Structures are given as C-alpha cells and as structure tokens.
C-alpha cells in the first residue's frame, strides 16, 4: 500500500533511532495525544526501542476512553428501546457502562449495529422507516466533519427517523487542562496528525507560547512517529518551544477549511466531561439549536437523567493524564482485565491499561 509500507521500513526506522540516540542528551518526557498513535507504537514495539532517556506517556487521546460514563449509559438505554436501531463505530461496543456494555444489549435482543461511516447509519434510517436510528457520534475533531455531514444530509434529505447522540471532544482544551494540572509533568507534546489534518495547527501556537512547550504534529506510522519524536527532542535540546509539523504530507497550518466550516455550521463548543478526568471547559462539541431535532437526548427526553455508577476501583482518569501507571492500580490484572474491564482504558486496545497488561506479563516472565 502506497504511503503506508515506506513508513514502516525497518532500515529507515533503525536510522532514525540512531539519529534520536545522538540527539538526546538528557531525560525528556513526551506525551502523545492520540489513541491511534498509541496503537501504532504498541503494535510496532517502538516504545521498547526508544533511547531510555525518552519517556513516552500515553495521554487522553482515545475518544473511546474519555466518553463520559453518563453518555455510555444513555447509549445503552437508547439501544434497549425496541423502536430504536442503535448504530455505532465498533470501538464503543465493549466500553463498560454502569451495569453492562452495548454488546450485552445486543445479546439481550437490542438492535445494535456497527457502522463504518455515519452515512451508513443514515442509509439504515432510510431503509427502516418504522424505526428510529440513533447514531453514537463520538470522536475528536477528526471525526466531527463526518458526523456533522450525517446531520446535514438528514436535514437536506428530510430523513426524520434519525438522531445523533453526541460526545465530541477537542484536543487543545485537553492540552490546556493537562498543562494546568500540577500533577502532570510533560516536556513536549506530539499532536494528533489527523485531528490537525482537519483543524490545522494554528490553535496550538498560543499553547506552546503560554506553557513554553514544543508541540509537534505527528503522523501514525513508525517512521512518522520517530520523525515527530526527533523533531520534539531537537526543540527541547535547543531550548525552543515551537509548533512544528512532522506530517506535512497531510497537514497544513490552516487545515481543511470546508470541513471546519461544516463543523461550525452543525456544532458549537461546550463544556464536556471526560471520563475519569472531569469537566474540561470548552472542550467539546454539541449540536447547534437549529439541529436540535436531530439530538437524541432531545428526541428521547427519558434518557436525559441517568444514574451512573463508576467502579470505585478504576483510576483510568489518572492513567489518562499520565499521573499514574496502570500497574499502580489496585485492580489492575485482578478485578480488571481486558475480558472484564472496569474502565475504558482496559477495553480499548490502545488504552494504556490494556497495553500494559500485555507487556507487563512479558516483562514479568522475563524476570522469572
């Protein structure tokens, strides 16, 4: 596959690792803010190959992990309704709610369907006029243009039996919240390449200045990741705190204007609760009033107030902020495993807890 294989080349990766070893002169802690980047790092084994001076923290970059418990419970409540076809991206199906997950709802007879694109959910609505199709619109800014288009098209094509349950989160506000937290100690950020493909990277410039921290837009393949890490280390070693772009084949400073325009047409910025972290002001999107008809929480007011019950043992919020390591959680590997997760960071294959679960066992075996 073009634009994929060449960025997984073993020789080039080896060469960049040597460059990195030469560039680094003291310990640096970098945070990558994207679940997809975490996934790629683990899948390629890259984190074990980095020079030991570099610590890579996996930040709250997984929209699955940070979707508030309340919204997961609302999704489950909607999915259990007989007149609803509940559609979602695959990632959300195993995320635990207060009592159960969407998988369990499907097992109990709920019509829960995985879709690849929000337009597929719209098609299901057209094909099933006697049901209401609810679509779980989660994601960072990357997914917002697609989710927004579904709403625009529903309105344009006059599709009435369609609604969206919105849980969008945005990155810059999260970085701000992390940098404001006294417990978080990060020297540099790797910004998410596909978020920035949509939004550009101009929003990060004030953050770099205010918090005196380099931010490098980074892609997803091993070569891209090393490029981003190298650039960030170069900034740090030179005492600079710039925003730089290591994914220029896809990202420009301004980003994708048509996409931003539709996001702004459909969504407005609001405060959002991040699971395990709490409310981060101005960190989410909600539907604008003119699209209220398509808001599932208004279409089904019964789900507005839901009693949530987070597991008292779960510390995924602290893990997501890089404050605690998964192994420091009392439930890790005991009450909480990938098969029976207590929190989202154990469910998602790039959630930090799931990743540690795999590697921790290897490290433990190696020592025995």
């Amino acid at each position, binding site marked *: 596959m073009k634009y994929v294989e060449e960025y997984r080349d073993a020789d080039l990766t080896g060469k960049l690792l*040597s460059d990195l070893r030469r560039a680094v002169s003291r310990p640096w802690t970098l945070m990558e803010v994207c679940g997809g980047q975490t996934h790629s790092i683990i899948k390629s084994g890259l984190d074990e190959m980095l020079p030991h001076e570099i610590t890579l923290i996996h930040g709250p970059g997984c929209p699955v992990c940070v979707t508030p418990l309340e919204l997961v419970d609302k999704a489950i409540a909607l999915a259990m309704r007989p007149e609803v076809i509940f559609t979602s991206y695959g990632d959300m199906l195993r995320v635990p709610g207060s009592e159960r997950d969407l998988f369990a709802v499907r097992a109990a007879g709920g019509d829960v369907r995985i879709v690849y694109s929000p337009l597929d959910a719209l098609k299901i609505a057209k094909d099933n006029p006697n049901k209401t199709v609810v679509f779980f619109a989660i994601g960072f800014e990357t997914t917002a243009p697609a989710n927004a288009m579904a709403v625009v098209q529903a309105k344009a094509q006059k599709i009435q039996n369609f609604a969206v349950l919105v849980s969008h989160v945005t990155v810059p506000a999260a970085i701000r919240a992390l940098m404001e937290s006294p417990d978080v100690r990060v020297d540099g950020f790797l910004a998410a390449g596909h978020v920035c*493909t949509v939004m550009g990277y101009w929003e990060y410039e004030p953050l770099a200045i205010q918090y005196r921290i380099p931010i490098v837009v980074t892609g*997803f393949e091993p070569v891209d990741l090393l490029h981003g890490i190298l650039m960030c280390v170069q900034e740090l070693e030179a005492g600079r705190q710039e925003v730089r772009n290591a994914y220029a084949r896809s990202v420009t400073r301004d980003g994708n204007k048509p996409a931003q325009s539709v996001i702004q047409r459909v969504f407005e910025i609001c405060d959002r609760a991040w699971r395990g972290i709490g409310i981060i002001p101005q960190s989410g999107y909600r539907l604008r009033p003119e699209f209220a008809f398509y808001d599932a929480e208004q279409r089904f007011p019964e789900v507005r107030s839901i009693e949530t019950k987070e597991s008292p043992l779960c510390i995924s919020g602290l893990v997501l902020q890089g404050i605690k390591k998964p192994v420091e959680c009392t439930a890790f590997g005991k009450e909480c495993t990938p098969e029976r997760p207590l929190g989202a960071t154990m469910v998602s294959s790039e959630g930090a807890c799931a990743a540690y679960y795999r590697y921790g066992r290897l490290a433990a075996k190696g020592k025995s």
Partner: protein
Amino acid sequence: MCLGIPGKVIELYHTNGMQMARIDFGGVIKEACMEYLPDVKVGDYTIIHVGFGLSILDEAEALETMELLKQIDALGSEEGTAA
C-alpha cells in the same frame, strides 16, 4: 480520531447531491465522500477516515521529507557504527 488510511481516487461521481468517489486502498475498493476535498482529481491519494476524505496527500512534500529523513548524517557515518 485516528484511523485515516491513504487511498487512491479512481472514480468521481455524485450521489444525493454529494461528491463521492471510489477509492482504491491497495486492492480493496470502497466508496468515500469527497465533500471536504472540492479540488480532488482522479489519481490523487487521499486520507480517508470513516468514509470521508480529509486531505489530499502532497506527493512532492512527502518525497522531500523522505529524502530528508534518509539523509545520512555526515558526522555519524564517518564515525562508524553508532552506540
């Protein structure tokens, strides 16, 4: 948030008033919406996320960066094997 895959545009058409494309992902063919890439042409490589094109990959930029990354650091290679 993240899973964006590069694919080549092999056909452009309209459906329901939206600009759509058939995309070839290294042998797998799937439809994607091109509403966010008004300048896209057949033959372009695009990043596709949940069935939507988000960017047209800049081939010149990609080649230039690749060359930069591959450049042997003159100092390093003359010193022989790195630590």
